[in-house]
């Protein structure tokens, strides 16, 4: 199962990076989401896959008997999903605002902060 998930993680990242290389802001945003989900899946896979018991320790014991699933990756992924979703929603609104006021969703035409045809620096001094 690990191998299948590893290949899937690779696919997610390849698709994410391919989309990030695009010039359209919305495609880049989707790329970031796919990439982020690839990372989440990677943490899930790296945290030991098992179909053993649920990670609940019976009352009165300090540790479980026998193998059990690893609960930590789920906590990590949950945090990462929440943070990733917050970032995604911010960037989505930002992209929309930028589209409204710059009239561009293509990064080649977003040049307000870095003008392309600026004159050369002065030669005095």
């Amino acid at each position, binding site marked *: 199962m690990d191998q299948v998930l590893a290949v899937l993680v690779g696919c997610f990242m390849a698709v994410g990076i391919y989309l990030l290389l695009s010039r359209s802001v919305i495609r880049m945003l989707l790329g970031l989401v796919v990439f982020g989900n690839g990372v989440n899946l990677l943490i899930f896979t790296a945290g030991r896959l098992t179909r053993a018991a649920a990670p609940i320790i019976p009352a009165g014991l*300090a540790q479980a008997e026998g193998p059990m699933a690893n609960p930590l990756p789920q906590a990590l992924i949950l945090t990462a999903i929440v943070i990733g979703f917050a970032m995604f929603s911010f960037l989505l609104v930002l992209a929309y605002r930028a589209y409204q006021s710059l009239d561009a969703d293509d990064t080649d035409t977003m040049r307000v902060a870095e003008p392309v045809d600026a*004159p050369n620096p002065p030669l005095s001094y």
Partner: protein
Amino acid sequence: MIESVTAAGDWVLVLPLALCLLGAALALILRRDRALVLVMSLLVIAAVIACEVVLLLRVYEAGPLSMTMGKWLPPFGISFTADLFGAGFSLTAAVVTLLVLVYYEGDRGSGLDVNFHAMVLLLLAGVTGSFLTGDLFNLYVWFEVMLIASFGLLVLGGRPLQLDAAVKYGFLNFLATSFFLLALGLLYGSLGTLNMADIMRVAPQANMAAMGGIAAILLLAFGMKAAVFPLNGWLPASYHAPPPAISALFAGLLTKVGVFALLKSMVVLLPASRDLLEPVLVALAMATLLIAPLGAIAETNLRRAIGFLLIGGVGAVLVGIALPSLDGVSGAGLYIFHAMLSMTALYLVAGLIERATGATDTRAMGGLYAASAPLSILFFVLILAVAGVPPLLGFWPKLLLLQASLGQGGWSGGLLAGALVVNAVLTLIAGSRLWAHIFWRAAPDGAAPAVVGSVAVWTGYGATALLVLLIVAAGLWPNALFEILAKGAPDLLDPSRYVTAVGLAGGVP
């Protein structure tokens, strides 16, 4: 299980964070009364500074201090661990933030700034957390806290220029933290732990190839955060867009956190993998040192030019990471301290210049010396400090780094020493060119006459002058800094005291 309650004195470690987060929440609640929010934020930051002074003294006396959350023993519970470097940087960050808040009062103009103070406090919480945390996943969370606060500050006011800058800043920084998370997942998969002290303990026994790959991804992620040369594109594209006080805050805090995380992960956490990556680090340090000031020479927008000088400083810290001797690590640490103060001050002065001339481009400036000699002196002193002219603060870290690179002996040490010297000369050329264009030459035809000194900007002048005074004083009396370095740097090279403080001393299981 941890059964005993943490001693009252140890709370000083998490109190700065709790205060910042509570302050941010209060600022949101009280947002209708701007004056009250301002006073509350200043008080909160003053309390944070007080806590961090106590923390610094304590760590200086007794070595690293650790606290673990929620009854779980260290490798499982989330630890906060302050070493001397982390405590010192978080103190500096709080001082810088306090001065920037004071400056902002004189400079804010009539712009819309609802929730400014809440976001600044959140940013400070993220920065302080990144400096004090002892857990890598927790570091990721603080990075994101810092990032979302900086997004908010960057678009505050919503001018098209800021939106454009925020798109580039947002995408590249979010990508960098995704790469960081990727490295975390791999590290957890191969070591089974994310506690920094535990990683220091078990990493030497782990698979060398896997650790090398993880270190390379961490270098990519933190390199992007720190604006190391080929990954620096977002910095000059975004730092000139928000109001000057916010640029100054970013310049003082954000890239420094990235470069400190790089120092910590390379030198302390994965030293064997750092040795593997050393040629890459040397090449990156040299490229950043040489190319960044050339960018500053070619740039005419004042704050964009300063952005390139800032990137050059990151190159100097990389020299320390590429040469992790005692001198190298001390030099890197002192350089981060110096850059936090000097870069903030430089952006603050740039804000005063922009306000006086009404322009952002140096081509439209000139003759400001006649209007304000003090402003020209502040700018000139800062240029000398950034270039590393003695006896200002910038000289000492460069001296340590030069000693480290010449003491190392090999070809890479010689190359790095050369790059450091050339960087200083190029920075001096770029800075004095800016100074000559803004202050010395006659004002260009048609430029608006400079207006300096309305009552409202006096807080701006005061905060900037205080920061410059701090830089000059620290340069003239650096002994206290050197004593802190002499105690703090060995802990980075030999983390046994750090591991003991977390409570993980003893053999590898």
